[in-house]
């Protein structure tokens, strides 16, 4: 496995975790703000969007 394979794994891992951490701290900020209602709405909206996008591109709707 060459350095480029290692780099891809490393960059993907860091980026994926960074996005989750941003969500973690954005969640705390939203919870204490007047936008807290978004936390109630987001789950359903994202699931519906996942369903809609998988109708269009089912091959990209994989496990995560």
């Amino acid at each position, binding site marked *: 496995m060459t350095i480029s394979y290692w780099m891809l794994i490393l960059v993907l891992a860091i980026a994926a975790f960074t996005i989750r951490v941003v969500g973690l701290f954005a969640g705390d900020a939203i919870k204490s703000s007047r936008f807290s209602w978004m936390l109630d709405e987001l789950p*359903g909206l994202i699931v*519906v969007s996942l369903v809609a996008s998988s109708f269009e591109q089912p091959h990209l709707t994989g496990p*995560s």
Partner: protein
Amino acid sequence: MKHGALAILPLAAGAAVYGFAFGLLAAQVGFPWWGVTLLSGLVHAGSSQIVAVEQFSGSASVLGAALAGEALNLRYIGIVASLSEILSGLSLRMKLLTIHITGDENWALTMAERAKDPTIGARFLIGSGLLMISVWTVSTTLGAVAGSTLPNLEQFGLGFAFTAAFIAMARGLWRGYANMLPWSASFVTTIAAVSLGTPKAYAIVTGAICGLAISHQLRKRGKTPK
């Protein structure tokens, strides 16, 4: 945690088949089996892994492949943000572990179950997440070991199996007529965005934002219970 692990089993079985197929693809691109194990264990975002490896096989550009893959992960900002209440009682270390093992399936299942039973929380999420990351890592590794000897499993409609699972979860999150307009807006916007060539990740984010905007307007007009 056992409850979550057991409840996620049907979805994990689907993920295992998809993971095996991804392992085959990664092996064809040149990843050794242990490289696939590392990739799946450290990234744990199946759809972004698939896109990144496909892009990498075409261009060998690490940055381009990573950008393409991570675009699919933008939805995790909203997914993790929605877990704020569930994660509130955990230490920072446990929060970081939990958000890493959280994926589409165990997040959606947890939220759907929590909508029916408010006692469902972090333990359910962690139990289902641990099972999912284990199944995903092992199945992708086995796929890589098997190499390219099996046909393309996508032709058997596995994509629709996930769609059906998400539809079932959406039913659990449905809270009544108040959801109708925001959900419809999200659905139509996402379909339109993907049809216009928008990458899936951006289409999902766009659809969710559009639904939020509609919901906000309804709340301002007092048509939705606060």
